[in-house]
């Protein structure tokens, strides 16, 4: 799917850029096939708005996961963080404490940020490996979500009208939630490419020892990244509850699997240092298209899980094969 040129790659085809152009190609091809198979029902106004609305929160979560994967970590507690922040915000709305939608979004982000901070400290200062730390904290956050809500739902009639209408409303023809995705995407692009802290994330991920020697505080970067990821999960919690207008204990259960799939397809490497906001955006969009279009195209929804797992496996294997070829070619170039 990707061509690494034999001659030293100059400006035209950096390894990263060619990965995203091929991903865009795959996505366009996919939409064409779906459009043909579903007899033209896919590319209609309503389906596109539903697509952008329903999957806005997974794309936003994927940006958070991108940061975590870039420093070589992982966070499987984002589903639980989303649930806790979304639920606590809805409860405060139901009990009349929060009366303005903007405040609701802010509170949800703050709750998510606190969860992210706890994860960051456990991993960096507590020296716990990320998979185990987020596994344990996922249990705790999910348990708290049920406990806080006394394990019953916040039904839509108890939610602020403005909060619910925000998710349905649109501006310049684009749904509000998708505006959040666009703003987040631009912010992530600028942050990762143009700010020094963004570059430090790449440095820590690409070569942690060199980064430590050159004076970067690895722990501080880790805590910051997991906190930002938590905040994003909090934001996604508000987006979720405002769109579905109910808050359930088991909401976003297993969302982390879709998000990891999106990042892996988007070319993010799991050992850190490699990945871009564009790649993740395209990866998440691909996952959304596949999930949305399955029933339209006649593949029954029961194939969806198996397909998603298959896509992650294929994307990971392609990454490895490409890296092996590049290493082999580098060896051959070395004249002895």
């Amino acid at each position, binding site marked *: 799917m990707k061509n690494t040129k034999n001659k030293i790659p100059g400006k035209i085809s950096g390894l990263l850029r060619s990965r995203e152009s091929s991903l865009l190609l795959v996505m366009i091809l996919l939409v064409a096939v779906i459009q043909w198979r579903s007899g033209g029902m896919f590319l209609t106004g309503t389906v596109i708005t539903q697509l952008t609305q329903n999957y806005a929160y997974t794309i936003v979560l994927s940006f958070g996961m991108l940061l975590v994967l870039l420093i070589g970590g992982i966070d499987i507690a984002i589903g639980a963080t989303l649930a806790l922040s979304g639920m606590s915000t809805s409860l405060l709305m139901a009990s009349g404490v929060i009366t303005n939608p903007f405040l609701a979004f802010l509170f949800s982000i703050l709750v998510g940020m606190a969860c992210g901070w706890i994860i960051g400290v456990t991993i960096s200062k507590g020296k716990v490996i990320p998979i185990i730390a987020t596994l344990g904290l996922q249990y705790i956050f999910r348990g708290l979500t049920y406990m806080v809500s006394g394990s019953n739902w916040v039904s839509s009639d108890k939610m602020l009208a403005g909060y619910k209408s925000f998710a349905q409303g649109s501006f310049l023809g684009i749904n509000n939630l998708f505006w959040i995705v666009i703003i987040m995407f631009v912010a992530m692009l600028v942050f990762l490419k143009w700010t020094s802290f963004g570059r430090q994330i790449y440095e820590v991920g690409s070569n942690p020892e060199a980064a430590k020697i050159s004076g970067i505080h690895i722990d501080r970067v880790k805590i910051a990244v997991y906190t930002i990821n938590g905040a994003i999960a909090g934001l996604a919690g508000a987006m979720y509850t405002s769109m579905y207008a109910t808050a359930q204990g*088991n909401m976003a259960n297993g969302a982390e699997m879709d998000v990891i799939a999106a990042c892996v397809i988007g070319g993010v490497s799991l050992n850190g240092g490699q990945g871009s906001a564009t790649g993740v955006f395209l990866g998440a969009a691909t996952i959304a298209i596949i999930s949305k279009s399955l029933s339209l195209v006649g593949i029954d929804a029961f194939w969806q899980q198996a397909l998603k797992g298959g896509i992650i496996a294929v994307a990971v294997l392609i990454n490895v094969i490409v890296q092996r070829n590049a290493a082999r070619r580098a060896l051959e170039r070395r004249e002895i």
Partner: protein
Amino acid sequence: MKKLIATLLALVMVLSLVACGGGKSGEPVYAIICKDASNPYMSRMVQGFKDACADIGVTALEKSPETTSAEDQIAIINDLVAQGVKGIAIAANDAAALKATIKAATDRGIAVVTLDSDTEGSQMFVNQAGVKEVAQVLVDSVYDMTGGEGEFAVLSASSTATNQNAWIAAMDTIIKGDSKYAKLTWVETVYGDDESQKSTDEMQNLMTKYPNLEVVCCPTTVGVLAAAQVVTNNPDCGIKIAGLGLPSEMKDYVGEGKACPYMYLWNPIDVGNCSAYMIKAILDGKVGEVGTSFTADNEKTYDISAGDPAEKQIIVGPPFQFTGENIDDWANVY
């Protein structure tokens, strides 16, 4: 040093948990197990069950699994048996899986009734409304809303929910059995698993796949709410919603010109209430053979009819219609 930490850890665990230990008074305990812990319809049933237990003079105890899984319900039944509860009322997540565990409980003299959703091995099914009656009102509302002709679909709960499957099967036999409904085309049955996200996605898929769909019938309170919200958000889709819904949730979606012209349900509080009395009736040996009837302690008489898969069942009452007019005064009841 390490031994100190170890003993400290053990001590803390013991103290903290003793502090919030449960009541062990000698009073008999009736337990209720719902499909999952956070379903609003179920919490109304529990409310009715607790009121009845208070009248009967027993302690009420609610224990429900987080997800609609039969596995967790089995574990809960085992715990309750171990605690020596006198009776269990359960809304089963599976028609067969609980059989052996319930038998282990009934062998120990514990009365086991099912409510809302039946399963094998239950001594009595407290049926909120007869399967045929529920199916009939659902088919009639679809017939009325489509004007007798057109496409309709069904958005149900989870694929293994016994009560929804029973109503859907009954609806099918009614439609096939009467030429009046011949012109109705049942396009598809989809499953929202009683999750608002999945129900919304399924509803949206139905709208896109069947452009001239006229009615979506949702025999589950979660489905009907999600469907009504989707229709309200796309007013020009021209789809009407029929089904079973809680008045409190549906009050701004039910009525003329709204997404759901009218809907049906029964009072879940009555169902919970009645199941407690049924446990008392079984324990007092009042319940006779199929065909006989008996009066429970709430001075209501019930006639026992043959149930499937439970041996006996009683009907709490006919489904109740909610329209734009009367929904408001029920909205704060349940």
